[in-house]
């Protein structure tokens, strides 16, 4: 299997919120990296996971599928999943796939963190 062409760095921005900075490609091969990042971001009773997609360079339909399974996991843990930094192109993909019905999309990290903390 090819290697995942993506990095996901986790930042703890408050006691209850972590931000995951996604850089690179979101495809099926990113599953391990995404789930590791989620595990790290959730440590210590975090309630809000904010994903920063400013560095997203490529995404295919398997990448969207990964976000759906992540969302189910987040909901199961009674956490919130929020997103910011989507380009117009990726916002349109969230619309087509109707993922924007289920994941809150924000314009900035500040807005997303505020909503995650509420």
């Amino acid at each position, binding site marked *: *299997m*090819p290697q995942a062409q993506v990095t996901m760095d986790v930042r703890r921005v408050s006691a209850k919120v972590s931000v995951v900075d996604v850089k690179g490609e979101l495809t*099926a091969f990113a599953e391990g990296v995404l789930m590791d990042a989620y595990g790290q971001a959730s440590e210590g009773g975090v309630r809000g996971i904010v994903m920063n997609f400013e560095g997203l*360079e*490529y*995404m*295919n*339909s*398997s990448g*969207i*599928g990964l976000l*759906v*399974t992540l*969302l*189910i996991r987040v*909901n*199961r843990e009674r956490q919130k999943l929020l997103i910011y930094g989507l*380009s117009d*192109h*990726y916002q*349109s*993909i969230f*619309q*087509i*796939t*109707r*993922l924007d*019905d*289920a994941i809150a999309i924000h314009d900035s990290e500040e807005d997303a963190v505020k909503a995650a903390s509420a």
Partner: protein
Amino acid sequence: MTERTPQPEEQEERSEPRDAAYWARYAETLKVSGVAEGATNINVEGRRAVGPMQGFGKMWQKTYRVRLGGVDVSPASVIQTWKENYKDFWPEGNIFYAPLAGITPGEVALISGSLPGGVKLSTGVMVLYADEESFTLMTPQGHPFSGWITFSSFEEDGATIAQAQVLMRANDPLYEVGLRMGGHKMEDEMWRETLRNLAAHFGSREPVETNLVCVDPKLQWRHYRNVWHNAGIRSALHMVTAPLRWRSARKR
């Protein structure tokens, strides 16, 4: 060293993501570009495409894969063949009316399937995504399930693998009951048969592996009203009322 202001074309080129050509463009509702002879477009035109988040039933991730062992074929060739002959790999009893433009992003295909009781199910799919090594179909409102089916090919341990992966929920309570009462088995067999046919096309007879995972056991009761668009019910009504339509057409 001097700085040069990028020209508008260069800026546009730079800002266009690499995956842009692979995705369908957003449209509020589906539009069928041409209805092939024998196809019925009663449950697709004007419907919205729906993903696994909009469905009612349990969420399943079903993966079917076959190893094309001993066959020298690249993943890109497998996907090209699959796109070009998609309808031929389906088991008998189901008809896929391929879009005129083929499996390309944004195209809508009509489907005729069979339901218990001899009812013909008229539905369809939209091509959500298509690149050289994968393509994804998305279902419309009223389809038995709400979700995506991704067909892909890749190399693993020196062999080419062909895979179909479904991420789905039953679209409404009636379909959920139907899936539990044998519908899942029928669907699993349909995709296994499809992969067997694809593998046979390349001269491979290896078994199809199946992996079924219940991603979310919860029912989404807020979507119970999806039953309004149920393509099975609407197809049955369309069939029952056919004599009335013939009579009114003859009068005209």
